[in-house]
Structure formats: C-alpha cells, structure tokens
C-alpha cells in the first residue's frame, strides 16, 4: 500500500525537488563560470533586475492556480507607471496619493477584466488578450511620446538604493510578497479555495463558494499588484515611457509554469514558484556574466521549461504503478494528456 499515497502532494514535492536540483546545478555552474557571481551586490542585482516581474509572478501563481490567466499584467504595469508619472508631471497631486491612485487604477483595470471573465463567462485568455492591447494603449495615451522623470528623490531611491543594508525597497517587497503569498496559498482558506476553484469551479460553486466573486476579486488584486509593480519599476528606472514593461507577461507566466503550477489550475505551490524564480534569475545572471547572448539565454530557458516537464512526465510514468487501479480516469496517462493539453479554458 505504500505507493497508494498522495499523488498530488508527492507530485508537488517531486517537482520542487526537481527544481531545487536544477537550481543547485545552476548555482554550481555559475560559481564555476564567474568569479563575480558570489558577491552580495550581484545577488542583490540579480533580484533587483527582475524584481517587478517576480512580484507579479506571485499573484500570477494565484491566478493560474485558479485555472485562469492574466495576459494583461505587463500592460497594467505600464498603466501604473504612467499614471504616477502623469499625475506627477501635470498635476499637483501629492506623490504618495499618485501612487495610491495608480494602484487603484490597476485594481479597476483588473476588476473590469475579472467581471468580463467571471460574470459574462468570456475566457480570461481572451479578455486579458484584449486587455494586453487596450491597457498598453491607455499607457500610451497617458504619456504619449514623452519620457517623464524627475521624480522625488525618495521615490527614486525606493528602487535604486538600499533600505535595509544594501537591500532596495522593491526587493524587500518581493520577499514579503512571496512569503505572504506562500502562506495565503498554502495555509489559509483563501488558498484552499483557489485550488478547488482551479480544479473544478462548478464543484466549488456547488460547495457554497462564491466563485464569481472570488475570481473578480483575484483579477482586481492582480491588476493592483501589477500596477504597484509598475510603480516600482518607474522608481528603479527613474523615468517612464509609454512602452514601460512591455512584453513582460511571457516571462512572468514562464516563471510560474516552470514553478510547477499547472496551466489548468488546481495544482502548484509557492515554494515551487520561488524556486523557479531563483532558477530563472540565477541562470540569466550566470549566463549574462558569462557573456552569453540574451537570445541564447531565452532559448536556454525555453529548453529548461520543456525539459523539466519531460522529466516530470518520465517520473510520473514510472510512478503510475503506485496509483490505485480503480482511480478515476483522470489519473490515466492516456487521458491526462489531452485534458492537460487544453489551453486555458
């Protein structure tokens, strides 16, 4: 009976272990490659360079666990940054209020998308694809062809200089976010509901969960967090243009998927996402220090994304023996394939 226990849990574990191994290999590779790798500044840089993406990745993990997807995050990041910039540039709104307004606008953007998706039943892939185009347009409307800078010093320093020791504010935000996200996803009712909704939204509704409300709120949070990340990005860059953060969505989604969150919802863990973030960041950093072309880096991450699932499948097949023979067909590999190849519904 030993084999009978907990495929879900052990699969997550197994995935995390696999990621951890990849991470260790990456780190060893980096240490061997570059003498500059093991420096405190490099470690901070490594986070700082992508901190906005990985903050958004935390909330994206929730969205994907829920069986949805949000392609519009990068555009909403742009909106957040541009709102702050424009309010600073052409109004006398206090800067902190401007930040709050930007986050609010992001939240509203997410709310709108969540409403379209959850209430009207338009797949989130489609809604947020429209959002990807439309909100980028909004960002462009706001700043047009300008490059807006000259932010208050304290704001620039949020993204550029250390708050606690050498750690910049945004990196601290990330660690708080991932810790908080991990606890919420793994240890609270909110997280439990996310898994259940992602596994089977109808069933969740039949269990008294307000699925529509949950999803609308989740998209609103996703929008607000994205906008806030955009604001942090503005702080790091010190100036804002209409194209700020464009194209980030695929990187963000890649990190979450590599983290073992199933695109069909219902599985995954924040630990996995965290490990995958570390892998991607370290890999990019190490390859960058080894003067490997950005294109090649992207290609290598593509290979790792595919290879890691191949490995997982190889293990899963090796392990099917442990499944109860009477298990419902969704454990049968033959069927799993085609359920799991579904695009986000």
């Amino acid at each position, binding site marked *: 009976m030993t084999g009978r226990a907990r495929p879900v849990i052990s699969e997550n574990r197994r995935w995390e272990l696999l990621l951890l191994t990849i991470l260790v290999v990456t780190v060893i590779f980096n240490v061997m490659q570059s003498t500059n790798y093991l420096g405190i500044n490099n470690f901070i840089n490594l986070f700082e360079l992508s901190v906005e993406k990985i903050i958004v990745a935390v909330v994206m993990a929730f969205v994907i666990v829920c069986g949805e997807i949000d392609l519009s995050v990068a555009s909403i990041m742009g909106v957040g940054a541009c709102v702050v910039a424009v309010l600073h540039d052409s109004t006398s709104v206090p800067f902190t209020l401007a930040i709050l307004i930007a986050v609010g606008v992001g939240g509203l953007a997410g709310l709108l998308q969540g409403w379209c998706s959850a209430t009207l039943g338009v*797949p989130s892939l489609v809604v947020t694809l429209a959002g990807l*185009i439309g909100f980028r347009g909004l960002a462009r409307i706001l700043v047009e062809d300008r490059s807006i800078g000259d932010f208050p010093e304290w704001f620039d320093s949020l993204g550029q200089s250390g708050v606690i020791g050498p750690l910049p504010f945004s990196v601290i935000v990330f660690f708080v976010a991932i810790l908080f996200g991990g606890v919420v996803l793994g240890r609270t009712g909110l997280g439990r509901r996310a898994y259940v909704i992602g596994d*089977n939204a109808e069933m969740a509704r039949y269990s008294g969960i307000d699925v529509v409300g949950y999803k609308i709120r989740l998209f609103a949070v996703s929008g607000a967090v994205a906008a806030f990340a955009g604001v942090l990005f503005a702080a790091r860059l010190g100036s804002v243009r209409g194209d700020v953060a464009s194209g980030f969505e695929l990187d963000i*989604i890649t990190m979450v998927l590599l983290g073992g969150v199933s695109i069909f919802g219902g599985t995954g863990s924040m630990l996995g996402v965290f490990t995958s973030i570390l892998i991607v960041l370290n890999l990019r950093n190490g390859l960058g220090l080894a003067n490997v072309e950005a294109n090649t880096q992207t290609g290598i991450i593509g290979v790792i994304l595919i290879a890691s699932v*191949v490995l997982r*499948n190889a293990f899963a097949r090796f392990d099917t023996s442990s499944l109860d023979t009477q298990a419902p067909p969704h454990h049968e590999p033959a069927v799993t394939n*085609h359920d*799991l190849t579904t695009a986000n*519904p």
Partner: protein
Amino acid sequence: MTTMSMSRLGPDRLKELTLAATIFLSLVVFGLLIEGYFSGRFFNRVTLGVAIVAVVAAGQSLVILTRNIDLSVGSIVGVSAYVTGQQLGNHPEANVVVAIALAIAIGAILGLINGLLVAVARIPSIIVTLGTLAIYRTVLIAYGDAKTITADTLPSWLVNLPKSTLFSIGDYDLRFMFALAIGVVIALQIAFGRLRVGRRLYALGSNPDAAHQAGLSINRLTVLAFVGCGALAGLGGFLFLARFGTITVTAGQGLELQAIAAAVVGGVSTLGGAGTLVGSLFGALLIEVLNQSLVRLPALSEFWRDAVLGLLILIAVILDAVLARRFNPGRPRILAGTSAPGREPGSAQAITETGGTATGGAATGGAP
C-alpha cells in the same frame, strides 16, 4: 426555423453570420466617419494585410480545435520567411511553387517538433510552444547571424507578388496573395467538412476521452494538427517574405497573439471542438478592418489606437458571449464548462464533462 437550419454546425454558422454582420456594421460606421473610406486602395490594403494573419490564424484554429494552443507560430513565420528568403536569394531560378513548398515544409517540420513534444512527450502545449517560441527564435538568430534578407536579393517575381492581381473591379483588386490565403482557408474548411480526418479532429477536441475510446489515434491527430498549424505558419512566412521583402531575424515577432486573437474573435472555442476556419478568417478580417480604419480615423491620435482596438476586441467578444447565450442557451460556446442551470444532470452539460476530465474540462466557468 427548421431543424435543418439549426443542424450540424448550426452554432458555428450562426457565429460566422454574426461576424460577417459585425464586419459589415463596422464598415458602415467607419464609412460615415471617414471621408473617401471605401477606396480601392483601402480594400487592397485590408485584403493584403489580412492574408498573412488569416493563414496563420487558420493554423492556430486547427490547434485550438484540438484543445491545444500554439504560441510559437510567430517564430515559425520568422524562420520560414527568413530561410525561404535566403534560399531564394541563393537560387533565384526557383519558381513560386518550389518556394511555397519550401516555406510550408519548414513550417511543417517545426510544427512536427511541437506536435511530437505535445503528443508523444505529453507536455501541455502551452508549455511546449512557450518554449519553442523562444527556441526557434534563438536558433534563427544564431543561424541568421544578424543579416537581413533584402528585397534586391530576391527574385523579382517574389518582390512583385503583392502587386499581382487576379482581376479587378474598378479600383478593387483581387490580389493573388489574398486569393491564395482565402483559397487555402476555404479549401481547408471544405476539406474539414468532407474529410474523415477533419471530422476526427473535431471529435478529438469535442471529447478526447471518447475519441480515445472510439479508437481514434489521438497522438497522430494531435501531431497532425500541429503539423498543419506549422505548415500554415510556414505559408504565412512565405506571404510575409513576399509582402515585406526585407526580412530581419525578428520577422513575425508577436504574430502569435494576433493569430490567437483572430481565432478566438472568430469563434474558435478554447475548449476545443467548436469553431471553423472560415470563422477565424472573419476574425482576422474584423481585426484588420478595425486596425486599418483606426489608422485612418483623423480624430484619433496615434496614441489612442491601441486602447480603442483593445476595447473593440473586448466588446466583440462580450457581444459574442451574450449573443451565444441568447441564441444557444443550452450550450454556450464561449462559456467554459459552465453547467447551465435548470437541466437535469442527464443533459448535455453533464455529459460534456464526463470521462474524468476532472483536471481540465470543468475548470472554469461558474457563471450562471
């Protein structure tokens, strides 16, 4: 309304009609807003512009029909356009058939890789193609070594291809490229209605478990869909090459989102099994008309274009969802896995989600 008219693919036909009406409506609206809107040149531009997206979107639809997605089409278009252009530069004596065959073959091979990884290695298609999106592009950049394919290296028949016209009515030309694109899409659509293999692809997307039980070779069908998608993206690459003449290694970047947008606006269900290639053609046409018309709208500043386009696409899909529910309350196309209320469990909703699709089928929806 007779049973006949609501029969096979009824909802799909309905969808196509709605789209055609929406396109017509937007033409009328823009015609009122823009002076000299209905010029032959505008027509030619829309038709030429849509040719590439339509072909790629048709391929994307094939894959979406089988409950998969292909994010790598933009990279496939790039590789196919670049390599074909390079080969034509080296072998200017090659004719149009050879060139198209080469482009399609390149696309098909890349599609085959996707398909094998999805079907045989059993990796979710979104992950496979997210990976190959990057990998194909990386390979192209390494291969291309930052060289640009320029128009003057290409044979003149290719450079002049966008100009070649089958026939004209006044200023309105039927360009070869457009004819080729819609010809391919319509031919495929007909083939899909008439060929066993086409119906089997629909069957696979409609209910993979049942397809498996019915003895259909799921792996082969899945691979076939990806190869078809790759081949069409390859053809798209050829059209891209002909249209722009100048091909850098970034050619086709971002085309995947356009193709997906065209397919879903065109009514291809991301839940598989529903939608038509002609629908995706209409979807591409609608987006192109909106895009081109917005460019022409004098009142609309450059910076407003994306925002308005996004909004219009959103309105289109919402309208579609609402209409779909009104006309087909039993089984809304777009409503994912929503079990319509007020039906005994025996009815269609319960059935569509049978066979242990616990991990997938019912994952969304929830709207009454």
